[in-house]
């Protein structure tokens, strides 16, 4: 074909191609919208059902006995914070340590086993983790406790934190590590003070996503932290939490409790939402994210 012919051919098809392009763009746009429909329906419905139950009492009062009106979920809110804090204290250092090991010493046989185990752990249903803590901790200790609940959630955090830490560390180029070694620093110091330091905010993102994930977990708490109708800040006592409280109110036969359960659901969703958005802000501030 001569170039004049090619030109003619191409421009002939130009109009048609433009229409196909527009059509495809519309189809893809509709697909994207369809994917958002469930998200927004959930958010919208939770908002619709939850707002009526939100009032000052919800945030300041503990549950009232059956038959009495009013009361709130203040103890569950505090309980969720205590559980998440305990879980973080146990799960984050462990997860980060595992992630560092996988990234920096990841070529050994042991590391492959650890990586495989982490992946398995990530896919174990959370109720099984709860059962595991129940058998290994709750039964021997003779009772449900906040600590047991924190442990269950902490175990759930480990694989997420470990894998995100590993991925972020791998983004730090080898020559950065070599620069540290070439200064006469031992490898562990280079890893902790240079490499890890360089992606603190990226790792924070992973950690916050892990927190957001466990903050809403219900199943592993059912036989570890159980629930508590009263104020408790003791790690050795059963403790209330938003998800479990939502669960028990939602299945109860009282209309007012249902309203409170929806309010609790709304607060939980907002909590997780805020943590998620916060994690994004962190990621943007990161040194390796920008490179």
């Amino acid at each position, binding site marked *: 074909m001569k170039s004049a012919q090619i030109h003619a051919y191409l421009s002939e098809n130009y109009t048609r191609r433009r229409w196909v392009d527009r059509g495809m763009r519309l189809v893809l746009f509709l697909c994207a919208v369809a994917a958002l429909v469930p998200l927004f329906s959930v958010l919208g419905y939770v908002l619709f059902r939850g707002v009526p139950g939100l009032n000052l009492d919800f945030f300041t009062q503990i549950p009232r006995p059956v038959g009495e009106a009013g009361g709130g979920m203040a103890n569950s809110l505090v309980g969720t914070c205590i559980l998440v804090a305990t879980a973080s204290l146990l799960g984050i250092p462990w997860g980060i340590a595992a992630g560092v090991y996988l990234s920096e010493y990841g070529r050994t046989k042991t590391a492959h086993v650890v990586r495989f185990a982490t992946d398995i752990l990530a896919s174990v249903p959370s109720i099984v983790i709860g059962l595991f803590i129940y058998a290994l901790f709750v039964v021997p200790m003779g009772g449900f406790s906040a600590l047991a609940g924190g442990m269950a959630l902490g175990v759930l955090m480990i694989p997420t934190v470990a894998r995100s830490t590993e991925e972020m560390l791998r983004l730090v180029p080898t020559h950065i590590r*070599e620069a540290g070694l*070439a200064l006469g*620093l031992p490898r562990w110091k280079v890893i902790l003070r240079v490499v890890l330091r360089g992606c603190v905010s990226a790792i924070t993102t992973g950690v916050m996503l892990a927190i957001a994930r466990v903050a809403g977990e219900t199943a592993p708490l059912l036989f570890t932290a159980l629930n508590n109708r009263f104020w408790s800040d003791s790690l050795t006592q059963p403790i209330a939490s938003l998800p479990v409280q939502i669960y028990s109110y939602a299945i109860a036969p009282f209309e007012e409790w249902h309203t409170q359960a929806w309010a609790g659901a709304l607060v939980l969703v907002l909590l997780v939402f805020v943590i998620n958005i916060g994690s994004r802000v962190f990621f943007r501030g990161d040194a390796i994210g920008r490179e």
Partner: protein
Amino acid sequence: MEASTQQDPILRIRSLNAWFGESHAVKDVSLDISPNAVTAIIGPSGCGKSTFIRCLNRLHEEVPSAGAAGEVLLSGMNIYGEGVDPVGIRRKIGMVFQKPNPFPALSIFDNVVSGLRLGGVRRRSILVEVAERSLRQAALWDEVKDKLHAPGTGLSGGQQQRLCIARALAVDPPVLLMDEPTSALDPIATAKIEELVLELKKQVTIVIVTHNMQQAARISDRTAFFLMGELVEYGETSTVFTVPKEERTERYITGKFG
């Protein structure tokens, strides 16, 4: 230039070999490095220049599957001797890399003093003093003295490379290895680094890898020509570039191959 070569060598390399797994990257190299001089390592890409100088501070062995054998005597002490800690060796033999690599998320100041601080020096007055001295040595002080707490990665490429030189100098190594330190830089930044090398050799011994023969001719006192892992020729730079002993050297410097 001639005077420097008459002193006792600061590094004596004897039968140095290096491997990546089965592949033999540096083959039985022996040479002496004179103190307070610039020694250039030249040769076509892939001939083992980087591998060779990475053996001089025992960084080569950090690569998985890498191995090295032979003797490297630093002022008489074999750095491959039994029980020698590579970490201590690297404090005496600093290194600057091809790609400027300031530590991410650290300020200019923190980058410069990182070797000292992570090595256990706490006294702020010492750190401040060393930071200024090293940045002056690296000819960067005037450009950064007003923004010492800005991130090191925010500097230009040439400035980043001089920051890396300052960082290496801060631990006061008698020997500084440089692996193609200007290959990622523009001509002006390159000229600055070359000038700096000539200034620095008064205080430190420099071994510089370069694929740029004009650069080797401009700044080095002695030149070693490598080919396929072997040391082909080593001598005064003026001699190597004008009357090489080996035909392979002549072919390379006249651009016949590589």
